[in-house]
């Protein structure tokens, strides 16, 4: 009898503390895997792509002036359970990076939930369009970025190294990846001048 009560008590405690009572399906958990930033008209738009088991990405467009504002708006208006802890890739269009990149990386560096090794890359508008079509595009981009880093260790592919480059004094520029796409994805390097940002 006592053993039975103990087992029931352990099960009840384990259920409560493991969070099993509050579990959600992956489709409704609103885990963001990838964010792209581009310009539509005169407005900068942040698109949050959710983690999903399907092949087609599910993105939400949030017009905002900075990533900080976009996250706040996304939580308030679009995705109440927004979670950015699993964010793997931030893609900035070549039209907007001068405007938002430094501030966004600076904001991310202060947030405990973001992974410092998430990838950051510049890209053209065709790549931004391609990532809306299939989840495979993100996987290919990440593979290409790892390959690029392997071939050229001086290129900065994540928040951590990009933030450190912005914070550093003495040098005027540093390199980041650039993804272009006409028929297939092509990764190259682009030099960013710190003074223009």
């Amino acid at each position, binding site marked *: 009898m006592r053993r039975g009560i103990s087992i029931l008590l352990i099960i009840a405690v384990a259920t409560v503390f493991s969070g099993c009572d509050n579990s959600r399906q992956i489709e409704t958990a609103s885990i963001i895997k990838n964010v792209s930033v581009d310009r539509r008209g005169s407005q900068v738009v942040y698109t949050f792509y959710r983690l999903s088991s399907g092949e087609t990405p599910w993105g939400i467009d949030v017009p905002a002036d900075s990533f900080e504002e976009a996250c706040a708006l996304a939580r308030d208006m679009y995705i109440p359970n927004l979670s950015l802890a699993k964010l793997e890739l931030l893609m900035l269009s070549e039209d907007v990076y001068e405007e938002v990149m430094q501030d966004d990386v600076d904001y991310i*560096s*202060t947030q*405990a939930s973001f*992974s*410092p*090794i998430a990838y950051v890359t510049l890209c053209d508008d065709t790549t931004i369009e391609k990532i809306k079509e299939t989840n495979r595009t993100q996987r290919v981009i*990440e593979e290409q970025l*790892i390959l690029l880093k392997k071939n050229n260790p001086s290129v900065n592919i994540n928040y*951590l*190294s990009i*933030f*450190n480059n912005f*914070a*550093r004094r003495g040098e005027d520029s540093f390199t980041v990846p650039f993804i272009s796409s006409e028929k297939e994805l092509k990764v190259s390097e682009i030099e960013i001048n710190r003074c223009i940002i």
Partner: protein
Amino acid sequence: MQTEVKFSSKRFLLSLLLCACSVILLQNNDLSSNASFTFNAVCIAAGLAVCFLFFLPSLALKKKTDSDVLSLARRYTPKLRIPLAVFYALYFVYTALYFLLPYIDMFHTKYFPEVTPCLITFIMLLGCAYAACKGVNVISRFGIFLFLFALLTNILMFGGSLSELDFSHYGFELQGDFNSFIQNTLYFVTPSFIAAIFACCSGVTKNFRFRQPVFTLIFTGLKYTAIVFFVWFALGDYAGRQTYPAFVLSRVAHFGPFAGIESFYLALATMSVFMIVALFLCCISRGACTDGDRKTVLIFTVIIFALYVTATYINSVKEILVNPVLLILLTFVAAVMLPAAYIFVGRKSNATGN
């Protein structure tokens, strides 16, 4: 109630090594930002040299009498036994909170923001009380498992951060001022609390050798240097933007696309703090009665919890409880002055033939 069985001193010192290493795991921007890696390495050497000096009286006591302060107090000064036990109890309650407060804060802010910190503390203290009831011997056995786990975590943390090391922008120059030296050295004196544990519990160990605490402090220094090295060269300026750099280091560690070492770090920090608090409760219980006295352990667990709740609501209490200078002063009394006094008391008693 446990019968007192002597166990290997090596195992006890291994547990103390793990306790000392937890200090750097919970480091939260306590080090001066003006200091370079080489400067911090000098501070580590200076701080741990002071720690060794803190160890000397209790080492001499152990070598001469094969006993600890609390046992000698019972033998030589029965009238002073209670004030001494009260002092050590207060000291260990203070030190337990000194470690619990940053640990719970780290756990709450970095890992589990949805759960109230008091609940995490309550569960943690329950575990510690249970372990303390089992005695120092059992806790030190757990230390063997924890040592292997710490080894694995460190290999993963450091191995996974190798790709992020940047020697071109962060150099080995000696850069820092006098104030930074004082601040950082004071921080690296913090692990001297293990000398106080040694002063209270060394009586239950056998096969003690003088080199054991020396190796303990050398390994502590190596671990500190490794963490400071990786924080300086792998995280760079990013470390200054975040709280708990060791946690950030565990997030940065990755092997290709595989990341997520922070759960290992968190488990290591949890088990280290668990062992520290459990050892403190054991020391309190040894002072009051014998090793593993349940009533004493439970009472002091409740006191620690009550003080934790007070500290979370009253900021002035929290400031006192996390004051590093006060901790070092109290450690000086607990690890240096009282054991030194008992060396003289013992010598005097032997001379008079008592």
